[in-house]
């Protein structure tokens, strides 16, 4: 096989892996949008916040130490103990559930029946708040995420592809793990929403708020539930992205990567989020691979958006979205 084709294939495989990471973030958006019609811009910052909390708990940082030091002139920084990863993850999940409850109780309960744009603005405000809170609580310096997922080049893929094509593909082990975990997460979500009582209630709410209310489903509980789920998805995304590129502010920008994925897959479809993520991941890498000599580098900043834009012109509701029917 010619080299170019092999390189392109390698780029495509890496694109698939990157696409899984995008899909992880997009999943959280879809969950909340389906259940409450809120376009949750703060999903990316939630991932950052979850990752910061996880690292903070693991290394035994004292929350708000910078603020306390600034006010009282003390020099606090660490408790002096470290927590095992599992305990830290459980602690972070607890924090995200508490966050979900607070968000429902103090923000969205007061915004019922507002226009979608107001709700969207509220999530942007929430994103700002959470970003500042995360930095003040745990400090803004770049942190290393270490939860025991192996990283570096995958020998297996390298050997396998070398045996097939005579050229070893470079694939990060972390991204293979990310794909596996994303798969498990989706299976878990599907089982939850299909076979449990709460899952059925969740689907009912997603289908029709008023009808769900009238058969006695607590909308508030479902909202807390769905924000908690989104928080857990954010934690998974935060772990993966944090392990890949360090826990820092830029982590919150992955939300911007997930938006075109949503457009492509449709705002209300979980399979859409996965397929959209894969298409964008592959498209982005291949475009960069073929077009870099012609138009220059850093095209991945906008390629996904342009792809989504062109796509929208032909199918405004996305690949798997519900058909939009409008009446006066």
């Amino acid at each position, binding site marked *: 096989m010619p080299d170019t084709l092999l390189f392109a294939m390698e780029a495509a495989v890496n694109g698939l892996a990157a696409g899984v990471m995008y899909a992880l973030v997009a999943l959280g958006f879809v969950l909340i949008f389906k259940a409450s019609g809120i*376009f949750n811009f703060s999903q990316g910052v939630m991932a950052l916040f979850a990752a910061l909390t996880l690292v903070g708990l693991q290394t035994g940082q004292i929350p708000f130490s*910078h*603020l306390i030091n*600034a006010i009282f002139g003390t020099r606090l920084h660490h408790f002096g103990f470290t927590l095992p990863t599992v305990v830290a993850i459980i602690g972070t999940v607890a924090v995200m559930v508490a966050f979900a409850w607070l968000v429902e109780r103090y*923000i969205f309960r*007061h*915004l019922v029946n*507002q*226009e*979608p*744009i*107001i709700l*969207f*603005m*509220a999530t*942007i*405000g*929430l*994103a*700002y*708040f*959470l*970003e*500042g*809170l995360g*930095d*003040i609580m745990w400090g*803004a310096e770049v942190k290393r995420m270490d939860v025991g997922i192996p990283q570096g080049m995958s020998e297996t893929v390298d050997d396998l592809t070398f045996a097939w094509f005579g050229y070893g593909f470079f694939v990060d082990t972390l991204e293979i793990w990310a794909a596996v975990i994303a798969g498990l997460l989706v299976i878990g979500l599907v089982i939850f929403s299909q076979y449990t009582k709460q899952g059925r209630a969740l689907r009912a709410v997603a289908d029709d708020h008023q009808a769900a209310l009238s058969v006695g489903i607590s909308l508030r509980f479902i909202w807390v539930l769905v924000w908690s789920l989104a928080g857990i998805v954010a934690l998974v995304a935060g772990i993966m992205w944090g392990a890949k590129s360090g826990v820092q502010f830029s982590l919150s920008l992955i939300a*911007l990567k997930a*938006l*075109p994925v*949503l*457009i492509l897959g449709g*705002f209300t479809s979980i399979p859409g989020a996965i397929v959209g993520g894969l298409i964008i991941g592959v498209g982005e890498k291949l475009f960069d691979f073929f077009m870099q000599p012609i*138009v*220059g*580098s*850093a*095209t991945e*900043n*906008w390629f996904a*958006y*342009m792809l*989504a*834009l062109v796509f*929208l*012109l032909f199918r*405004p509701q996305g690949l798997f979205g519900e058909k939009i029917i*409008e*009446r*006066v």
Partner: protein
Amino acid sequence: MIYREAGDFKTSYAADNQTFPIRGDRIAYYMVLAFAFLVMPFVINDYWANAIVLPFLIYAIAALGLNILIGYCGQLSLGSGAFMAVGAYATFKLTTAFPGLSIVFVVLLAGLVTAGVGVLFGLPSLRIKGFYLAVATLAAQFFLIWLFTQQPWFYNNSPTGMISMPTREFLGMPVTGPRASAVNMYLLCLVFVVALAWLARNLTRGTLGRRWMAIRDMDIAAEIIGVNPMMAKLSAFAVSSFFIGVAGALFFAVYLGAAEASEAFGIEKSFIILFMVIIGGLGSILGSFIGAFFLIVGPVLLKLLLVDQLGWSTDLAAHLEIMIIGALILLFLITEPHGITALWRTIKEKLRLWPFPH
């Protein structure tokens, strides 16, 4: 006692249709104008101009523009940062290519260029709406910023990738570049602000504005009663982008002097302008000004308090600042989703009846 309609009789159609039907409003408006043109130039200094007054005026133009698009025509856009960048880079290219061209003319031309780009990126609005459109406008944001940072033609191959504004004079006085004084810069921006606010006010209460509002309230119904949705949406994009382009041109030429696209016109700019519009009040000219004032003065006050008074480190203060901005936005949305102008409207209603409650 002072603020009411009673006794203020209108004797002609023009008087009945004027912008400020209540005398109290009119007097306040002329007093603000007189203060801005006759008092401010004598008291302004470099610090006030750079910290508050210039950004306020420039962001007010941008907020006006975005308010036309979102508040009057109902098309959600997150690309304002990039449209400001178009204005800035158009100014740079035009003024370096034609050094003899008057700066006012250059800024207006830059606005027109931005209007063209805005129409181009407004085309998807004919097919899609709501959040889909918001994401589509993000395409403009990322694509345009990429263009301005990666294609050397736009920044005249300067080795740093920055664009910097040469000194330009208006009526014999330097208004841009290092020699420009605060007064000159202030007056230039002020003239643009007043002219554009006047334009926005009169556009929005004329035929065009009514078309926009019909589209905003319900596009299908508007189409049925004879509003051409294509013309209405694209004209909103054009006018809005013109305003934002002028704001970007002034932001670069007068306020910054030198700029780099991804830093000066990143997505944070889009959000800040959106916040101004929402906090100030959707569909309100006054609201754009209030929102801009609020978001410019707020951070300056916070910084004064935290860094200069309490002596905290700047990065801690910065984190606290974004947290407080976020919390304020949430607070505003919860207590008054229609912005500060809605509060102002309630106060006005109360004032008219004061001191009698009914």
